[in-house]
Every structure is written in structure tokens, then in C-alpha cells.
């Protein structure tokens, strides 16, 4: 029978039907054993769930002070490059370290520090390539994405 729709019985119990629809469904239930049966089950489920909800145990997670403590934890800010001349400070530090290492190695080998245009040009070009390493930007992008996703909150531990 097309009038037998459990969704409507459910909506009737939830008080979601208009008065007209509620009267129509009520009238149908009076004459339909299958719907009376279904309605009994729906009432049973609602009753069980209500009892179960009343028994929700007191848990540490339901204490607001625990949440406050968590909210008060310093957030780990996503890595954001600084604007202006400080934007490339990381790259500058890497270049400086590489220069020091290069000069140090040259001195240890006992050879003269190249002064001519050609070799120095080649070395500078090599250092320049090291400075263009894209991994720093990729890491920054990943950190920014994770920060946005997690809202400065630690990932749920995997248990």
C-alpha cells in the first residue's frame, strides 16, 4: 500500500508533520496493522535511545576545564615567510654557511682561493643553484596547509 511509509511514521513521532498530515497518518495507522507494528518499533527505539542518552557517563572530556586547558595551550603557528627583505633570511643563512664551508675546504686543500673571474663565477653559480632548492617552499606550503586544517590543534593520536 502506497500509504505505508515508515518515514512518515517516524516524522509523526518526531512531531515534524503538519497537523493535516499528522491526522492523515494517524487515520491510516488506525486501519493498518503493518504500520501499527512499525510504529511500535519506532516508539521502542526512541524510548531506548532516550534512556541511553540519560545514562551518558560523566567523562573527563565533558569537563569544561579540560577543554579550557586545551584551548589555552600555545598554538603552533603555521610557518609563514616574513615580508620584505627578511623573506629570504633562510636562504641567506644557507648561502653564508655554504660560502664558509667552501672557503674552509679550499684553505684546507692548500690551494689558493680562486680570484679569477671564471672559476669564481662557476662556484657562485653552484651556490646559487643550492639557494634555489625548492624544498623550503614546499615544506612551508605543507605546514600552512596542515595549520589551516588542524586549527592549531594536535592530530588525534592513533590508538
Amino acid at each position, binding site marked *: 500500500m502506497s500509504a505505508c511509509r*515508515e*518515514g512518515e511514521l*517516524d516524522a509523526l513521532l*518526531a512531531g*515534524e508533520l503538519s497537523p493535516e498530515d499528522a491526522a492523515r497518518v494517524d487515520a491510516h495507522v488506525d486501519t493498518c496493522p503493518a504500520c501499527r*507494528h512499525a510504529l*511500535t*518499533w519506532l*516508539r*521502542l*527505539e*526512541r*524510548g*531506548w*535511545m532516550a*534512556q*541511553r*542518552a540519560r*545514562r*551518558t*557517563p560523566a*567523562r*573527563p*572530556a*565533558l569537563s*569544561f576545564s*579540560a*577543554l*579550557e586547558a*586545551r*584551548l589555552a595551550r600555545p598554538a603552533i603557528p603555521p610557518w609563514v615567510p616574513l615580508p620584505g627583505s627578511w623573506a629570504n633570511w633562510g636562504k641567506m643563512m644557507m648561502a653564508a654557511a655554504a660560502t664558509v664551508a667552501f672557503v674552509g675546504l679550499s684553505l684546507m686543500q692548500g690551494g689558493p682561493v680562486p680570484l679569477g673571474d671564471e672559476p669564481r663565477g662557476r662556484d657562485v653559480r653552484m651556490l646559487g643553484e643550492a639557494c634555489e632548492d625548492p624544498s623550503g617552499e614546499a615544506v612551508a606550503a605543507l605546514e600552512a596547509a596542515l595549520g589551516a586544517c588542524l*586549527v*592549531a*590543534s594536535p*592530530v*588525534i*593520536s*592513533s*590508538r
Partner: protein
Amino acid sequence: MALLSAVKMVLAGAPPSDMDRERALLRRARAGDPAAFRTLFERHSPGVWRFLRDLLRDEAAADEATQETFVRAHGRLGALRDQDRLGAWLLGIARHVYLESRRSRGVHVDVDDEEHASRVEAVLPTPTPEDLLLDRELEGLLADALGMLREERRAALLLRIDHGLPYEEISSVMGWSLQKVKNEIHRARLQLREQLAAHVGGRP
């Protein structure tokens, strides 16, 4: 502003409804009032915890996921468009937290029996008034029966029968069409009843 609306309602002779109070609390919480956020937390956290416990089937994991849900909610209160749907919004965040937790734990256990579920309706017994009492044994059986449902289907059923969300809000939380929500909840109910039929009186 909240005081003004309360005064207006008193003057109009109508006491503020629960929904009016919740809207007022939400406005205050969005404005940074910690006491208002605390009241909202105390109202909604038991339901959120229960939803997560039923999905995760692990009380300690539900504790952590509940906290995570409210940390996220605290940071995004301004993003809630419909103030009347705070409960559904929180349960939607909880579901996302659950999905992330499940992925991080590498857990995916779906126990389902579509074919069997489609042919059980005719043999269900009719419950008696005595069956309404949910004793501890039956509560355990109910939890087990819920656990037998496929995770997404279980979530949809719980949003309806435990948290009282309208089908339209379940559709929004689950990201499903309205028809799919109705179908999934109907199937979940049949499976749940089948699991519990042996413990319900009346005709076999």
C-alpha cells in the same frame, strides 16, 4: 542586545524558548564570552561524546575526539551560518573528526549484510510495553547491534534516532541526497531490529 530581546519577549508575554536562549548564547560566545561558550559546551558535549563513542566504539578515543570537536568549533563559531543548527553543525564537525581519527588509526571494519537485511521485516516480533525498559543487558545488546551496522549507516541512524536531527540536516551532515538518507536509515533500522528481535517479546 540579548537583554533587549529578552525584555521584548517578557513584554510580549512569551517566555524565551530553548532555541531563543541558544541563539542568545551563541551570539555571546561568538563575541568572545567564555561563559556562554561554556554553557553551549555543557549542553552539547554529552551528545557529541555519545555520537563519537558510538562511531569509534572506544570511550577514551571518544573523549579525545570530543575535545577536538569543541576546539575546532571554538575556532570556527563565526563560520556557523544558521544559528538554529548548532547541534547539527557540532555533530558534523564530530563526524569529520571521527573520519580523520579512523584514517589515522587505519581502521575500516564494515559489518553489513544487505541481502539479509532486505528480507527480515516480515518476521519481526511486535514489542510489548515491557520491552521499553532498557536494562543493562539490553543496552549492551543494543550497542552491539549498532556496532554491526556499516559505519556511515550507523552514523545516519544515530543522527536520527539518538540526536533527533531532521532528515534534511542529516543530508547536510552526511553529504548525501535526501533519498539516500531515508534509504540508509530505513535499512539500518531493519538491521537493528533483526539483531534485537530475539530479545523483544510478543509474537516471534
